[in-house]
């Protein structure tokens, strides 16, 4: 981990902060897309070191937050079946569906297990041929290759008792949805480093050109984020809108080709509902026709479930960077991590939870530029 300490060096971070202050001449709003970055920003207090002119808004990049409530309800329905072992990453267990969460299903006797890799779920299926093993395949481009590998392996092994509940989402279409919205206030993006490590960043130049926004591929350590913000603001100040790569130690233009191939073999691009935002065309991954037999929603017949959100929750606006969590009337009172109204209060990467956990007061906004 010597690697990490370099990127948490206080002197270097503060040096960038000073350079940023010297550089900036007017207010700018930048969105970090990824929930991991949101978490790091709040945890290390990167935002506290920024000049007042620079406002960070938080993006839709938390897979737990954007998984639609219908799919959570489907997961809960499947996990409650007596012959099912339901496997999920830890984060998902606390997300509220319309009635309850997966932890409550577990407490009521459902066999819900936390796994670290989808391949663990495949192994469980081999070990328990008499049970149905279901894996909750959520996440962005980062988790999709491993999930694809699990499905491919299950097919090779001829497993009849393994299936996946798929709710994969893709980042670039979400960025486009935000940019094309009339209420958009995002002027520059920090693109998610981990996503680009898999996918590369060849999808971004058309976006940057069409909407005239700088996009900086950025890592997750405080120094990465500070440098990414600096690069983004520099472009904005200079009137440029290009795609730059701050995270060159992990990200190449073309990304990880074998991982992309695996994804393409098992998944295809589909329209996808985003919790709190709505449907975004071509923004998700679903199983290809050849792999339909591994679709848990079909196998257990739960595709009919429809559900409504808490009317109080504004997490859709939070996810699009239109509102801050602290602007939500329910924040910290009717909505807390123990009693979340929306998914953004649940996941450790959710913006509402990060604000709550680190009690982040609203920063005074920079004065608007005079017309």
């Amino acid at each position, binding site marked *: *981990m*010597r690697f*990490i300490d370099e990127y*948490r*060096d*206080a002197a270097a*971070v*503060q040096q960038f902060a000073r350079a940023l202050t010297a550089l900036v001449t007017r207010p700018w709003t930048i969105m970090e897309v990824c929930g*991991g970055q949101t978490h790091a920003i*709040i*945890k*290390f*207090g*990167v935002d*506290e*070191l920024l000049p007042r002119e620079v406002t960070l808004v938080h993006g839709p990049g938390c*897979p*737990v937050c954007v998984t639609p409530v219908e799919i959570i309800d489907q997961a809960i329905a499947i996990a409650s079946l007596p012959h099912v072992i339901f496997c999920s*990453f*830890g*984060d*998902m*267990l*606390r997300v509220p569906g319309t009635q309850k969460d997966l*932890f*409550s299903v*577990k*407490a*009521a006797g459902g066999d819900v297990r*936390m796994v*670290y890799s989808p391949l663990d779920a495949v192994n469980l299926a081999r070990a328990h041929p008499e049970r149905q093993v279901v894996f909750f395949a*959520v*996440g*962005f481009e*980062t*988790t999709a290759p491993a999930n694809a590998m699990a499905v491919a392996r299950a097919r090779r092994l001829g497993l009849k008792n393994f299936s996946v509940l798929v709710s994969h989402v893709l980042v670039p279409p979400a960025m486009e949805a935000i940019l094309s919205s009339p209420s958009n206030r995002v002027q520059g993006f920090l693109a998610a480093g*981990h996503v680009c490590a898999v996918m590369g960043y060849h999808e971004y130049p058309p976006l940057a050109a069409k909407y005239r926004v700088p996009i900086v591929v950025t890592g997750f350590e*405080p*120094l990465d984020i500070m440098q990414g913000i600096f690069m983004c603001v520099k472009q904005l100040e200079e009137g440029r809108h290009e795609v730059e790569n701050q995270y060159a130690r992990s990200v190449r233009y073309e990304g990880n080709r074998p991982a992309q191939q695996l994804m393409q073999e098992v998944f295809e691009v589909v329209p996808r509902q985003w919790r709190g935002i709505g449907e975004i065309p071509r923004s998700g991954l679903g199983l290809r026709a050849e792999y339909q037999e591994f679709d848990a929603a079909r196998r257990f017949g739960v595709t009919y479930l429809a559900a409504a959100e808490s009317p109080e929750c504004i997490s859709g606006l939070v996810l699009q960077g239109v509102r801050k969590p*602290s602007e939500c009337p329910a*924040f*910290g*009172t009717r909505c*807390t*991590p*123990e*009693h979340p109204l929306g998914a953004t209060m649940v*996941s*450790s*990467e959710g913006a509402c939870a990060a604000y*709550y*956990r*680190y*009690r*982040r*007061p609203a920063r005074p906004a920079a004065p608007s530029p005079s017309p």
Partner: protein
Amino acid sequence: MNAPQDFALQCPVPLRDYPQVLLAHGGGGRLSHQLIESLFLPAFKNPALDARHDGAVVEIGGLRLAFSTDSYVVRPLFFPGGDIGSLAVHGTVNDLAMCGARPLYLSVAAILEEGVPMETLRRVVASMQHAAARAGVQLVTGDTKVVDRGKGDGIYLNTAGIGILEHGRRIAPASVQPGDTILLNGDLGRHGMAIMAVREGLSFESAIESDSAPLAALVMALLEADIDVHCLRDLTRGGLASALIEIAEAVRRDMLIEEAAIPVREDVRAACEILGFDPLYVANEGRLAVFVPEAQAERALAIMRRAPGGEGSCRIGQVLDSRDGLLKLRSRIGALRIVDMLSGEQLPRIC
């Protein structure tokens, strides 16, 4: 850095109306805390319990005694650096030591699952015997129950203990003073990550060994040197963060800790990074925080470093004047933030 009104917690925060007990109710975070505050404390209200300490200090015939109990349901039973037997002895010995007491006698109750190999039980008992000898306590009474196969995790242990206070100090959260220095006796997070690694079959380059150890000798060394110890707290479930937040909330004092001063071993840090855990919240079984007046901090540190299990002692922060009851942390990059109690246990992140 005062929290503005709309960020203040509702107090008491309503216990989330779960109709059933969840694992998180035992995780050492906010839900455990709420369960205790809203269910157990009101039911049994008395001055010893109200002190909110790891053990109770009671007076019997002019003697001040400390009394504590804890149950151990750890899975797996054996892990690098320890096992359920030594853990059960250290845990109660440490709770007594946190009251400033010299631990004397323990009881042990074992709940065994039908089918547990006798050899396993033998190893656990031998480990308890060894740990008791090392901590200078005697196991003087006990109980054994057997439950049907499938109704337990092999072996559950409960230990209770009695210790004696040989000094007039009141070592408790209420004695914490502004300006107190907070000392820590070594690196954080090893027990939790050792258990995690074995339980979940995660392999890291080196095996992470639990820090499980008795702390009474270290505490006795401080007291015998007449250090004016204000409060002691061992950092078990919930880790350093939860322990300090509990004290800060109990006495309504703010504390400031320095992230850069808190030692975490590289392998533990790497494991935490992979799983998305914060070492501040990871469980320890041989670590404690010591609150002493600043004027005695250097001397206390020197004593701790010479004591068994205190080689890595360091200062990590101090108690502030302000009275919001918040734990603040100066992050590695020099920004201030609040450290809050977790809702349940930490969960591995998704990406």
